[in-house]
């Protein structure tokens, strides 16, 4: 436009041209700033977690795969409500699962009911307390902490508030993921029942259903755990 003014309208006063030029430059600078800002905002740079490749983010894409190692850099994940619902359901099921008898064992006339916690106490008295503490951590404490921390962290985020101890919650939850072994414990119950049916009668208790439910809730909760989702929600919160 300036070039056009310069070339064609030569009788335009000089001061006007200068003014026009300044204004135009200001506007164009502003526009460039805005556009680059938008472009920068829209195409944020991503980095692959497994190979370290830098790539452009595409906001419209639901999932992005690294072109070099095919890791999904951004997955389509469930909303926070989904996780919150799962953790509430887990909390409801947790205490019955721990205190109701899981298996009843019958030999002759005597019947023995075993709950999750009584099993652990027998194991503790057996001679290797460290081992039973490991089992306690992986099958009771870690799922409980996972459910409680998800509840404490996600309830304020759902109401668009910032949780007070967000960083601690997140750190604990992040490091717990590897140690939740409830699904392994369900298979272990199955195996030991099959092992004992040869010698005696084994009856399933009502706690078993609760335990299977708890393990599936906990499994789904750790499947949908995504750091990006949680921190995005934290930044959107007031």
């Amino acid at each position, binding site marked *: 436009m300036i070039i056009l003014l310069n070339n064609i309208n030569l009788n335009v006063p000089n001061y006007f041209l200068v003014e026009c030029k300044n204004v135009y430059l200001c506007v164009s600078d502003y526009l460039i700033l805005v556009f680059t800002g938008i472009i920068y905002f829209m195409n944020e*740079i*991503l*980095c692959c*977690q*497994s*190979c*370290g*490749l*830098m790539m452009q983010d595409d906001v419209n894409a639901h999932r992005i795969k690294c072109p*070099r*190692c*095919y*890791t999904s850099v951004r997955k389509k994940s469930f909303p926070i409500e989904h996780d919150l619902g799962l953790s509430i359901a887990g909390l409801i099921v947790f205490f019955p699962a721990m205190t109701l008898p899981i*298996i009843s*064992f019958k*030999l002759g006339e*005597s019947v*023995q009911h*075993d709950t999750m916690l*009584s*099993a*652990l106490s*027998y*194991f503790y008295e*057996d*001679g*290797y307390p*460290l*081992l*039973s503490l*490991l*089992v306690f951590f*992986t*099958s009771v404490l870690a799922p409980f902490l996972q459910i409680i921390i998800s509840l404490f962290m996600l309830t304020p985020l759902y109401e668009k508030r910032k949780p007070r101890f967000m*960083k601690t919650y*997140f*750190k604990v939850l*992040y490091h717990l993921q*590897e*140690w939740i*072994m409830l699904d*392994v*414990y369900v*298979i*272990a*119950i199955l*195996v*030991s029942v*099959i*092992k*004992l049916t*040869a010698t005696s009668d*084994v009856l399933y208790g009502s706690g078993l259903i609760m335990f299977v439910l708890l393990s599936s809730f906990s499994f789904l909760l750790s499947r949908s755990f995504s*750091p*990006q989702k949680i*921190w995005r929600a934290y930044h959107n919160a007031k």
Partner: protein
Amino acid sequence: MQNDIDFKQALCQHCYHLSPVSLDECPVCEEVLHQRKPNSYIRTLALSLSALFFFIPANIYPIMKTVSFIDYQNSTIMDGIFYFFEHGEFFVGTVIFMASVFVPVLKLVILFYLLLSVRNHSTWRRVQKKNLYKMIHVIGKWSMLDIFVIGLMITLVQFGELAEVTTGFAALSFATMVVLTIFATESFDTRLLWDKKEDV
């Protein structure tokens, strides 16, 4: 195709936020920033070697002792698996074999192979190597199955006069091995496979 090292950026392992290397802490989650997991190679090597060391007593010593008034029986991990195969429980026998022998051995073999290829700066089939790592990350916890089964057996067989089941020394060393392999898997960084020779 350029790495984060070329751009002098560091990816936060906790929140996947990208920030310059000059920062000490991640601005989002205040976690200490590292471009790669610190001392990844030597840490993984040490942990997997000690896991290999604990794997030997886990297989030699009895994992479960069954005491009844008729006989006294010590059984190692392999004895327990043979017991299932002799009694026709092929499915359970296979599950126990997979969990307590196949998975730990596979895990250690894959970890040593990955460490070797990082050491040699091998560029051969890096994507498949990364997939192997993802696999052992997922199946690693299943080797705890045997420990859980023993814990349940002790509880279920509590008829003091008829029969009693107690834990053997192998259970402790087996559990130690599993925990060490989990830590070894956590400390390995797959980005080392793609790093150039001059970066390290």
